[in-house]
């Protein structure tokens, strides 16, 4: 059909005037109940199933999970890390979950000399945290491109690795922004005590996953500038009725519980048991499923995500 033909539509047709949009509250875009057909975002259950199928279809990724964890464990233990091994389950997690676990690993592994002061007291830890942040960014970039390629083409190729190089700057930026969120969360917990700890520490992790969870997928799938990628991720997350916040809350709480629970591998030691390896591998695959789920959710709604911020009716009326 040509554009010319489109312009020949009957002139008598007048589309019915849209009903005035209901007044929106502050958190409507996040918490509004989902009306049937109200959001183009696929339902949670079906997207989780698709995420699981996508992850389990990438054989190289499944094979790489235990190899990467073994390599990371061998590297860290050679520098003095002795566990708990269960912290390795965040290797494939989304930031800021990774960012929140990194200081613990860095503090026990790359420790400054006792009584060091000034830069010397913090340099080793900071370098280690940035090193771990870079590592997690690389892992996230590769997983995102593999997921996108698998979802788009039904298979993976060396393209994903090449493309991951371009996605890395986005995952690094997300890592740094999530680090900032965690610092803010710590300040909130410091100033507001018990309830502040819940909202500050857990809330900052949830917000990080919620707002920036789509960014690696966008970077892998589309050619956009970094700032554009990040703002589009936020815009995708805030699509009304998408239940993205609930997904982030469930993911973060489940991950934190798995980190704190007395599962095999939650003790100190340099030789994890078979059960500990099994738990960490399964949890790592769980994190991959989350990333694939987010990839699928974004790709399903990508055409519907506005390129510009949506003006709220109240804003439009004012202009």
């Amino acid at each position, binding site marked *: *059909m040509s554009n010319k*033909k*489109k312009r*020949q*539509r009957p002139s008598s047709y007048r589309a019915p005037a849209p009903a005035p949009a209901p007044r929106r509250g502050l958190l409507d875009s996040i918490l509004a109940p989902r009306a049937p057909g109200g959001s*183009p975002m696929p339902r949670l259950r079906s997207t989780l*199933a*698709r995420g*699981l*199928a*996508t*992850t*389990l*279809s*990438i*054989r190289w990724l*499944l*094979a790489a*999970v*235990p*190899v990467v964890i*073994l390599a990371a464990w*061998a590297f860290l*233990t050679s520098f003095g890390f*002795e566990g708990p091994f269960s912290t390795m389950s965040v290797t494939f997690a989304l930031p800021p979950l990774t960012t929140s676990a990194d200081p613990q690993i860095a503090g*026990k592994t790359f*420790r400054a000399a*006792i*009584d*060091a*002061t000034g830069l010397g*007291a913090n340099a080793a830890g900071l370098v280690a945290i940035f090193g771990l942040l870079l590592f997690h960014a690389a892992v996230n970039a590769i997983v995102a491109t593999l997921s996108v390629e698998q*979802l*788009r083409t*039904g298979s993976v190729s060396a393209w994903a690795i090449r493309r991951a190089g371009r996605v890395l700057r986005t995952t690094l930026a997300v890592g740094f922004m999530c680090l900032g969120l965690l610092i803010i969360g710590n300040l909130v917990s410091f100033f507001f005590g018990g309830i502040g700890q819940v909202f500050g520490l857990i809330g900052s992790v949830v917000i990080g996953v919620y707002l920036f969870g789509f960014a690696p997928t966008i970077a892998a799938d589309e050619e956009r500038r970094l700032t554009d990628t990040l703002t589009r991720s936020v815009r995708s997350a805030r699509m009304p009725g998408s239940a993205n916040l609930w997904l982030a809350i469930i993911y973060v709480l489940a991950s934190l519980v798995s980190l704190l629970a007395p599962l095999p591998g939650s*003790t*100190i*030691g*340099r*030789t*994890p*048991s*078979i*059960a*500990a*390896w*099994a738990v960490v*591998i*399964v949890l790592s*695959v769980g994190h991959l499923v989350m990333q694939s789920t987010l990839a*699928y959710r974004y*790709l*399903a709604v*990508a*055409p519907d995500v506005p390129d510009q911020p949506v003006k709220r009716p109240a804003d439009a009326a004012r202009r």
Partner: protein
Amino acid sequence: MRTLRWLALLALAVPAVAAIPAVAAFGAVDASWSQYQRDAGRSGLAPEGTPEPPYTVSWNAPAGIGDPSKVLGSPAPILTDGLAVVVGRETVEAIDVSTGEQAWSVPRALGPSAPAAVEGDTLVFVEGGGDGSTASASSLPTPTITPSATPSKHATSPSTAVSASVSSVVGMSLRTQRRLWSVPLSDVSNTGVLIAGSNVVVGAAAGAITALDLDGRTRWTKDVGDHVLAPIAASGDLIIASVRPEAQGSAALVALRLADGSQAWRYEPNGAVLDLGGPSVGSDASGSPTVYVVGVDASVRAVSVADGSQRWAAPLYSPTTGSPPALTDDAVVVTDESGTVYDLDRATGSERWRFATNRRSVDPPIVTGASVIQPAADGAVSAISLGSGHEIWHGTIADSGVLGLAAARGLIVASVTGTAPGIVGLVSDPAGLTEDVVSPTTADPRGLVANWLGAALPLTVLLIVIGQALATRMGPVSFDTADDDAVDPWEADLEDEP
């Protein structure tokens, strides 16, 4: 008739002879664990004749320590004159260690439990302070040395004047359980009692350290600033206390002269260390006394008693809860909060071995002739060989925390909380089994690879198979929301037009 008489005598004699070993074991308990961690230096070094593992529970005596939801402070036991004495929440109780029966119990004003100390017939303990509350900032004493005060005498029960928010030091006759004197402090006391020579020393949370004589007369009070919460140690004519800052700044170790409370030196580590924990004092190989402290920054520090200069510092893997290290002739034995026990060279701080029990530990270890005995917060006790660093025995003696140990010839006693809070007596178990467990922190590359293969191979194969099944069931993904094959009604209309 004569035969019957002999039989009767024999019947009486058999139980008496059978009881001899028990009496020999328990009746010989002397006053060698007369205060927290045995002595004024808090060495934690058990006297000769302390039983070696494996252990068995000889008796279990209930005491008013409180269950895990109520236990407060450190109800570590002391041993004196055949009695194990423990300061509970609202009682001070003595258990006859030869029978495990309660010898006596006296009331005590509610307050944090803290170890008592005994000298001669005088048992000194702290009471009052409420249920964990601290005094207001207005009660902070001024940094002065105060002259003697006259104690109140001959009370038989907690004074009604005892405030809920401050503690008092109480002297009591061990023989008659009569209160000899009581001296109020300026704040809640958590440090327990130190007896150094003829001096009784206690610290208060708001930073005041008070020295009394054994008759309860105050010799001096010194405010060392911030908070004094950890047990105080003594070496010669000095007492050494750990001072904890309010929230920021660094902790300090302060040495005061016993004679007048004047400050001999003050040690502050570089960097911000919030707590240095309770000090232990012992002489190193050169004979010069050294203080050992375990900081919450996961470190052990050795400080010269002579001038307060740091001799060495060694890292630990995890922070500690501030319990003092145990000392042998050549080793400093410390335990971090994750339950990893370290043996460090006393002269250099170099690590000889570490053993990760993986049982959270709050209270300090004690050292017998050949073993380190470590209590744990889950009710277990572990014994680690001093020579090899291997665990040679472990057992569970309570269903919750073991809160302190004391040792004497033939017996180890432990205060425990849980569903049956009280005192447990441990003796050697000749029929028990020992073990030889290497620390999980020891590298085992072969085991690492074997375990990895054992988990990774089957799991990966399983996940791939599940993935194939899922892919077949769910089919390929399609994101084409605008279906090219669908007929657009507008287009159809237009094409129908002439």
